[in-house]
């Protein structure tokens, strides 16, 4: 091989630039609509990301991967349950792949960071999770919240639990120490006041905690009437298991305030689920036409019925597609305007996106788990005790002005 000359190096450089730069431009000009699913495959929510991905794919596939008569290009990235990784991957997908629509991620703390990227890059961002800030103090035109407001959740859970257990006034709280935990805890306490509930203890634990004996010992020492957890996924499962091991449940009722539902319940033995009360954004026995069809197909594919994680991804994707339909365009601003005030009858029942805050107003579920003997089949975890959709009262609303584009 002859030695390289200056001209050759220039040529190679030009080629490299072409290879890295041009395809992005070509892609951006093509007719496909690029949607990013930011789902964690590593980190604290590594187990949830694949489920989110399933739900999102199903929503896209039922439309034949097409909207507005154009093909949809679905790309997914691993955010690693980390703000740094998630924001970087999002920016890369927006810049290099031409993604203008982002759904995810699963952790509310991380999603807040991604929401800032959406605002800066002017792309549509849909999210489902327990922080109130996305449709609250940090609201803006580009981000939308699918999950019920933490207020709606707390109100549904506390009101209906107290209706069934009016004497249970001494509560011990176990709260995950990040954005979601703080939001839900705040409203559990606010709603608790109206019932005269005394919070005899409230401990916060780090995300990803697996050693719960220390917290449970402390909870037991307070002799509470109720233990209520505000945590999620593996944390909630580990906590519920240890609360049972220490002999609190089934004597003392346990509330999982904001649960994934099926995915958490299936990890707990029926003995542990006795006297367990579960608040969740979706439960698979929800009797709506959309839920019936979705649950049937999902269960056919994956055996287990869908819990909150795949359902949220499924419904958010349907919401976004409905936004395209309504806007009759894939222009970001047009889709945002279409999503504002959008009404749908989806898997959880009637949903409406509040244009002023970008909060979805929709029912939240309270379940009561069945004792082992009462279960009709292996997956018959619980009955839906109540649903509630009380919106966040004005005095708490922190999104004063959603702003302009």
């Amino acid at each position, binding site marked *: 091989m002859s030695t390289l000359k200056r001209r050759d190096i220039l040529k190679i450089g030009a080629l490299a630039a072409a290879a890295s730069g041009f395809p992005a431009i070509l892609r951006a000009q093509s007719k496909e609509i690029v949607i990013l699913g930011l789902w964690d495959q590593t980190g604290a929510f*590594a*187990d949830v990301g*694949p489920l989110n991905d399933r739900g999102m794919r199903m929503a896209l596939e039922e439309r034949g991967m097409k909207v507005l008569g154009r093909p949809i290009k679905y790309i997914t990235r691993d955010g690693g349950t980390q703000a740094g990784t998630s924001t970087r991957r999002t920016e890369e997908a927006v810049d290099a792949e031409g993604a203008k629509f982002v759904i995810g991620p699963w952790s509310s703390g991380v999603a807040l960071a991604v929401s800032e990227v959406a605002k800066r890059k002017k792309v549509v961002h849909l999210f489902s999770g327990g922080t109130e800030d996305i449709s609250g103090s940090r609201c803006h035109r580009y981000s939308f919240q699918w999950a019920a407001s933490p207020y709606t959740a707390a109100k549904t859970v506390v009101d209906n639990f107290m209706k069934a257990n009016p004497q249970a006034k001494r509560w011990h709280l176990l709260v995950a*120490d990040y954005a979601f935990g703080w939001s839900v805890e705040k409203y559990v306490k606010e709603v608790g006041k109206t019932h005269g509930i005394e919070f005899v203890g409230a*401990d*916060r*634990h*780090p995300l*990803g*905690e*697996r*050693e719960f*004996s*220390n*917290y449970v*010992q*402390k909870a*037991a*020492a307070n002799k509470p009437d109720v233990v209520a957890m505000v945590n999620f996924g*593996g944390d909630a*499962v*580990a906590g519920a*298991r*240890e609360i049972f*091991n*220490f*002999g609190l449940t089934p004597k003392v009722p346990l509330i999982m305030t904001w649960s994934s539902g099926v*995915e958490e319940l*299936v*990890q*707990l*033995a029926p*003995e*542990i689920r006795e006297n367990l009360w579960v608040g969740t954004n979706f439960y698979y026995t929800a009797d709506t036409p959309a839920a019936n069809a979705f649950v049937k197909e999902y269960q056919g594919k994956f055996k*287990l019925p869908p819990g909150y994680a795949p359902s949220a991804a499924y419904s958010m994707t349907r919401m976004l597609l409905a936004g395209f339909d309504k806007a009759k365009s894939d222009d970001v601003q047009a889709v945002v305007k279409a999503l504002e005030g959008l009404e749908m009858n989806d898997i959880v029942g009637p949903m409406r996106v509040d244009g002023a805050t970008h909060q979805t107003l929709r029912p939240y579920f309270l379940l009561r788990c069945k004792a082992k003997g009462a279960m009709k089949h292996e997956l018959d975890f619980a009955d839906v005790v109540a649903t509630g959709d009380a919106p966040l009262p004005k005095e708490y609303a922190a999104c004063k002005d959603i702003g302009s584009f």
Partner: protein
Amino acid sequence: MSLLAGQILNGIATGMLYALMGLGLSLITGILNIPNFAHGALFAVGAYLLATAVNVLGNFWIGLVVAPLGVALLGLAIEYAGIRRLYAAGHDYQLLFTFGLSLILAEGIILVWGPVGISHLPPEILRGGVDLGFTFYPKYRLFVMVAAGLLVFLTWLFLEKTRYGAIMRAGIENKEMVSLLGIDIHLLFTVAFALGAYLAGIAGALTAPIRGLSPGMGVDMLGIAFVVVALGGLGNLLGAIAAGLLIGVAQAIVAAYWTEASTVVIYAVMAGVLLVRPQGLFGIR
């Protein structure tokens, strides 16, 4: 006061499990001189094997015997078929190999047992708790405390009082010398790895009813095992036991008064001790 006493009990129970993990890792790291990144995965395999053995055989006690033996066999195979070939290749390759192995084992667990976690209840006679006067305490945790303590003691006894134990300790001190004395150093490596794997496996099996099973359960434990080894002093077995207990109890006490810091304290204790004694609690190198 009763809260503190209860927390110390918790700390001892988890500390014993940490000590088992650390002891196994310390043996492997000390004798084979490789950082075993698959130690957490072996822990997870132990837990899953226990659950399967109990389901198939219908008896917790047989499961508790069989599961860690299965992990020891797996360790034997890993050393014999894999690590043995890399002694000459240097640290980077061994590190990459064990790291890759940990991923393969974790994904293998997903393939065999599925991605969703499982609960495994303690055996019938160890369910529920006993009133110790100052606190109500789960029977199974008391059992773990005793069983893990006994295992730690037996391992120590084996290493201190038997001829082969003495050879193993000598192997930690000076491999070349042991080899020159006509002892099969390769066999020693295989035995050490299998024993280390056994300890990880039984720690996993004992943990299963407490923490349940999930494919990623080894990751949390791996970090702690390395902390225990660093804190106790590399290759120091008494140090690993002391460090395991220290971390367990520190974590429990901090959780009683400042719950948010209960994970951080593990690493804070390590950093604190290493600042004062860079060689670890009992370490010499």
